[in-house]
Structures are given as structure tokens and as C-alpha cells.
């Protein structure tokens, strides 16, 4: 089934926005954060208008209602990613916090000096810095799966690295710069064969692809609501139940306990063990609405639409003299086109496009080492989501020609 873009665009009020007189928004920055459909905005608004109360500790009507809504969203998120149980879906603030949770709780309990952690050269800073910090504290070792010239992970080198008995392999399912969709299931399988735990950064994959926790078999999987039609301030760490149960709590406080004495505590069961303090309740409910929205459209349809737009965009961009697009061909990547324009800095490109209402991102997109690898300080990045159209790609292309003319 193809998506009905006319109808879909009506679901996103911001897409109607006029930035300046006669200049309509062309939003090509969904990789940074997606726009939100009315159903998500309304779910959060409704919650505050009708049901707001703290969760898990009250017996009054509102407390019961809000708890049911908060936990109901968790159930639907679990179904969306085909987790075996909602207990394995832990609410966090975002992908970054999910990865840090693993680094603080699992890794500090399991890794010692000299233990090897394998990452990749295409990681977002959020899957690098927590490991740098642990390296400084514990003396763990880090090594990296290289990225090839055409933006793919070098799996031969990965296999060699695995022969050094790593304890953990942590990689992104989809790159936020190159768009590369990594063969996650195969990489997890290889990690397991080598006796390593596998953590997958799903910040870019869950919004755009159908993901299936049971088929993928990752030990941990991290993602953020705000990149998949949901609100900011909430994300998920999925984990295998046995692992999560074996791990010490992360933050201590209310809600994560079963019992507290003056000098001791007993931790709560999953998932609450990792959710200390009053959580982002309205945001969890908004996240549930986002998952409903995506489920209603069908992730296969979302992926097919994005593929069509991406293919078109890559063809049109490559037509422009001086444009170089980074990453693999459209069949191996999601809706991301990071590019340079000869002789013109990405900041200038983005700024001039903005005058026509075209929102693209310029910079290193929190992946500085990857840019260094390609020998460039920055790129401009256009990214596409379920609401983007070919007409918007045309606007982008016309805009780039204007930039070229200006710097002529």
C-alpha cells in the first residue's frame, strides 16, 4: 500500500507553517527530530486536561487512570518492536540515556581493565563518549569496525576483531549521517558466537524500518520517541529479561524500590527497577500515540515511501555539478542524504536554503570521527520521513542551484 501523502500531511499542523510571508516550511531535518502528528499532540493535551496524576502510588481515580495510560503505552511500544514482554521495555529520556544506562549498570558490573568493547567508526557521539568515559575509569579497551569508502561497515575486519574475544559489541542499526542500514541481525549473531553481548543503537532504525526484537536477538536496543513522531524527553532501553534482572539499578530513588529501610533497600522488579522518580508520564502517553500512528500507517509502507523519496533525491542531487553525496546507494540506506557542495561551507548552504523555508542541518551531526574519516569538517544533511514529498526534493535541488549562483 502506498501512503496517501495529502492525508498524511494534514496530520502534521507544523507543515502548514509559513515561516515568512509567502515562505512555507519544507522540513528536511527529521533525522534530528521528526515532526509530530495531531494525534500525539492531542493525546498529551488530553492527558493534562483530563487524567493528570502521578502514577503507581495512588488509589484515586486519576492515579489509576494515568498509571493505566502510562503502562498501556509501554505495552503498545513492546508490541511495536515485537518484544516478548513489556517488562523488557524500560522508559528512559532518550537513546543517549539508554546507552548510558547500559554503560553504568551492565558495563560497570561486568567489564574490567583490558576488556574489549567493539564500536564502529560511524557511531553517533552518544555511542562513543559513554565508552570513552568507561575507558578512562576502568581501562577497558576500545576498537572500531572501519567504514569503507562507500559508507558500509567492513564486516571482514569485524570478524577479525571478534577473534579477540570482546565482551561487548555496540553499533548503530542505521547511521544518522550516511543513512547506511547495517546488517544488524548478522552482526548480533556474530557477536554472540564470539561470546559478546550486543547493544544496538536504534535511534534511526525504529522510526523508519520494521524492527523485531525477537528476530534481531540483540541483548540491548536503544531508541528515542522524538525521532518517530513522538515527544522529546522519552526513549526506551529494550533488554533481554535475564540480563536486565541480573543488572544493578541505575538511578536510585522512588518507584525503583520494593522496600526501603533506613540503611538498605530492595530493588523493584522489571521494568520499574530502572525507572527512578516521577517519569515523563505525558511523554510516555504521547509515545504510545506515536506508535499507534506508525502502526496505523504500517512500517513497511513508511519504509517503502522513504525509499522512493530517497532514491529520487539521490538521483537529483547527484545531477548537480559540485555536489558529493556520502554513503551507500539508495538500496542500502534510509532517508538520509549528507552532502558537500564544492567550495561552499555547509553552514552557508543551510543558511541560504533557510531563506526559502528549507530546513536542512549543517555540521558534523554528532559524528565528528566519521567526518574526519572522510576528511571533511562538516556536511549538509537533508533527511526524509513519511510526510516528505518529491516536490520538496525539487525545492531542495532548486535551492542548491541558488546557493551555487550566489557564490558563483
Amino acid at each position, binding site marked *: 500500500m502506498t501512503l496517501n501523502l495529502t492525508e498524511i500531511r494534514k496530520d502534521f499542523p507544523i507543515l502548514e507553517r509559513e515561516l515568512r510571508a509567502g515562505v512555507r516550511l519544507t522540513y528536511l531535518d527529521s533525522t534530528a527530530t521528526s515532526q509530530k502528528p495531531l494525534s500525539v499532540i492531542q493525546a498529551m493535551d488530553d492527558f493534562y486536561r483530563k487524567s493528570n496524576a502521578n502514577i503507581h502510588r495512588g488509589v484515586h481515580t486519576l492515579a489509576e487512570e494515568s498509571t493505566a495510560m502510562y503502562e498501556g503505552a509501554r505495552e503498545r511500544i513492546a508490541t511495536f518492536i515485537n518484544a516478548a514482554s513489556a517488562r523488557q521495555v524500560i522508559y528512559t529520556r532518550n537513546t543517549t540515556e539508554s546507552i548510558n544506562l547500559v554503560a553504568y549498570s551492565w558495563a560497570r558490573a561486568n567489564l574490567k581493565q583490558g576488556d574489549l568493547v567493539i564500536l564502529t567508526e560511524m557511531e553517533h557521539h552518544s555511542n562513543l563518549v559513554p565508552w570513552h568515559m568507561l575507558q578512562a575509569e576502568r581501562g577497558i579497551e576500545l576498537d572500531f569496525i572501519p567504514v569503507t569508502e562507500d559508507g558500509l561497515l567492513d564486516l571482514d575486519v569485524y570478524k577479525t576483531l571478534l577473534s579477540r574475544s570482546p565482551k561487548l559489541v555496540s553499533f548503530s542499526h542505521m547511521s544518522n549521517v550516511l543513512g547506511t542500514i547495517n546488517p544488524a541481525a548478522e552482526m548480533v549473531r556474530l557477536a554472540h558466537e564470539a561470546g559478546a553481548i550486543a547493544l544496538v543503537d536504534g535511534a534511526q532504525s525504529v522510526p523508519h524500518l520494521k524492527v523485531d526484537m525477537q528476530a534481531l536477538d540483540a541483548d540491548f536496543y536503544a531508541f528515542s520517541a522524538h525521532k518517530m513522531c513522538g515527544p522529546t524527553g522519552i526513549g526506551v532501553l529494550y533488554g533481554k529479561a535475564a540480563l536486565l534482572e541480573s543488572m544493578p539499578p541505575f538511578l536510585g530513588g522512588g518507584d525503583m524500590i520494593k522496600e526501603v529501610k533506613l540503611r538498605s533497600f530492595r530493588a523493584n522488579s522489571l521494568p520499574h527497577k530502572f525507572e527512578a522518580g516521577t517519569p515523563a508520564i505525558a511523554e510516555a502517553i504521547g509515545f504510545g500515540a506515536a506508535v499507534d500512528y506508525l502502526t496505523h500507517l504500517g512500517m513497511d509502507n513508511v519504509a517503502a515511501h522513504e525509499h522512493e523519496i530517497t532514491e529520487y533525491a539521490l538521483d537529483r542531487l547527484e545531477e548537480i555539478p559540485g555536489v558529493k553525496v556520502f554513503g551507500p546507494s539508495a538500496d542500502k540506506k534510509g532517508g538520509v542524504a549528507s552532502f558537500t557542495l564544492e567550495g561552499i*561551507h*555547509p553552514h552557508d548552504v543551510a543558511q541560504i536554503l533557510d531563506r526559502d523555508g528549507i530546513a536542512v542541518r*549543517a555540521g558534523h551531526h554528532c559524528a565528528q570521527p566519521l567526518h574526519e574519516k572522510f576528511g571533511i*569538517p*562538516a556536511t549538509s544533511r537533508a533527511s526524509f520521513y513519511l510526510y516528505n514529498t518529491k516536490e520538496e526534493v525539487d525545492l531542495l535541488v532548486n535551492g542548491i542551484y541558488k546557493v551555487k549562483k*550566489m*557564490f558563483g
Partner: protein
Amino acid sequence: MDDLYREVIIEHYKNPSYRGKLDPHDISFADNNPLCGDHIQIDLRVSTDGIVTDARFDGHGCAISQASADLLVESIIGKPLEEVKKLNKQSILDLLGIELGPVRLKCALLSLKVLKAGVYGLGEAGDDLVE
């Protein structure tokens, strides 16, 4: 908005008059804008009575950062260091002759931060140098 890319800015970006390095030099300092990877190095020659006798900048980045570096270096040659120390955000905006939003302001001010950190002999180019 068109003002941002006034011809003079594009001209200084494409054909800077003071790009390069000075060897020997009396003062040299370099720093990055961590947000976008703009990089600027400034070299100075200073006479015994504290006058900037020559200056160059090098680096890479957007039109705003590179054009403001060129304009800044041009403006300080022949000036006493004491006067260079007094330069601030407004001096750069006056040189560029444009208004800037908060993000692009960082690009424009990078060269001034580098210059002042060098002149004061500091280890790092902090934001406080350009207020």
C-alpha cells in the same frame, strides 16, 4: 537576510587578502568552533613598542567565519595591542556590517576569540573574550 551574504562578505571569503601564516611570528593561536568544525589560526608580528606590524589568518569554515577573520586581520595591522584587546562583538559586527542570529554569531566571533586568546597569552579561547 540577503544582507548576510553581502557581496563584500562573499568577496572576502573567496579572495581573502590576509590568508596565510607568518614565520617567524611573535604570537600565534588557533581554535575551533566545536559546533561546526570551523577552524582559525591567527599569527601576529608585534614591534617592541607593542604595535601589530603584520598579521595573517589561516583555517577553514563558512563564509561568515572566514570573511570576518580576513576583515579582522586587515583592521588590526598597524594598531597597538592595547587597542586590539579592546575589540569586542560589536567591532566584528561593524566590520561585517550585518546582523547575525546567535548561531552564526559564533562563526563570526571565532576569529576575535582566537586573536584575543593569543594576545592575552591564554590557553583557551573562551566566550568571555568577546562580550
